[in-house]
């Protein structure tokens, strides 16, 4: 484990990512990286034979509206061959509450990212550059608003049916 940590720290440094510690309940190394360098770091974690992070558990995110409003995106990876997990987080500030920040897609690295990114995009109101097919996944295609934003207000009617109780 020590060895992996050192190698991870070296890679993180080369992508200007900050090591945020080790989360023991999930046995997961936490990294924070700039959004522009996120896809590059993830690709190296996938391709580098020291890590071989071949399993992408999830792409998820959160909306933080207080103080500095921002959208954070988290990637959870595991290396099945090397036996460790990594969480890579990245964030973008929102200048206006309606802004839709864009992040780079990792679909070309892990095919499984496709649906995760579609879900994150429709629920949080983010855009993934170079995503092959960024339609809605769970919501109806003409749904208004982004339900996981903290300032989300559901629409009054959907196809003529009242949404509220």
């Amino acid at each position, binding site marked *: 484990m020590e060895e992996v940590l050192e190698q991870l720290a070296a890679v993180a440094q080369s992508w200007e990512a900050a090591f945020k510690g080790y989360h023991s309940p999930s046995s997961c190394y936490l990294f924070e990286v700039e959004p522009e360098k996120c896809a590059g770091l993830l690709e190296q974690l996938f391709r580098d034979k020291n890590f071989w992070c071949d399993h992408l558990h999830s792409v998820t995110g959160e909306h933080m509206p207080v103080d500095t409003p921002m959208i954070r995106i988290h990637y959870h990876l595991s290396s099945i061959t090397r036996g460790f997990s990594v969480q890579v987080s990245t964030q973008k500030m929102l200048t206006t509450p309606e802004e839709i920040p864009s992040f780079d897609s990792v679909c070309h690295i892990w095919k499984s990212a496709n649906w995760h990114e579609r879900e994150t995009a429709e629920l949080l109101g983010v855009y993934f550059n170079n995503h092959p097919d960024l339609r809605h996944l*769970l*919501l*109806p295609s003409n*749904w208004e608003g982004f*339900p996981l934003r903290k300032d*989300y207000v*559901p629409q009054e009617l*959907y*196809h003529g*049916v*009242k*949404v*509220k*109780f």
Partner: protein
Amino acid sequence: MAEKTGEAGVILTRVDDVLQWANSSSIWPLSFGLACCAIEMMGTYASSFDVDRFGVIPRASPRQADLIIISGTVTFKMADRIKRLYEQMAEPKYVISMGSCSNCGGPYWEHGYHVVKGVDRIIPVDVYVPGCPPRPEALIGGILKLQEKITGKAGLEQSNRDVK
């Protein structure tokens, strides 16, 4: 009657009564389930509860079905499909709303932006079965109530089926 009297007899009745009797004794529901209520519904169809004894046999096409059991959470995405299935059914057609979700939104009534707060906002409902999910006995109770309604014993008029 032949056994009772020893000769062939005649039963006098109204055409309406015969049709209602036939109708209520062969309620064919659509094979259609939505959520956890559908698991209870499947249990109701299966041998332990055996709704076949009431003439309830699930059919795989809305064109052969008399009844649609809305068994579970109706999301807005599903609502359009449910409406279309209901419209494809031939008259006379009936609707049982099974469980809290399809009755009124259930646990999603406040924060479930995606849930229709009661399937009666989309299609007219004949019988509401409460429960979360209802036991098979409760669903059978709902089917019996629907039989009463069809035969006119429940004292309910067809006309009070309205979309709210």
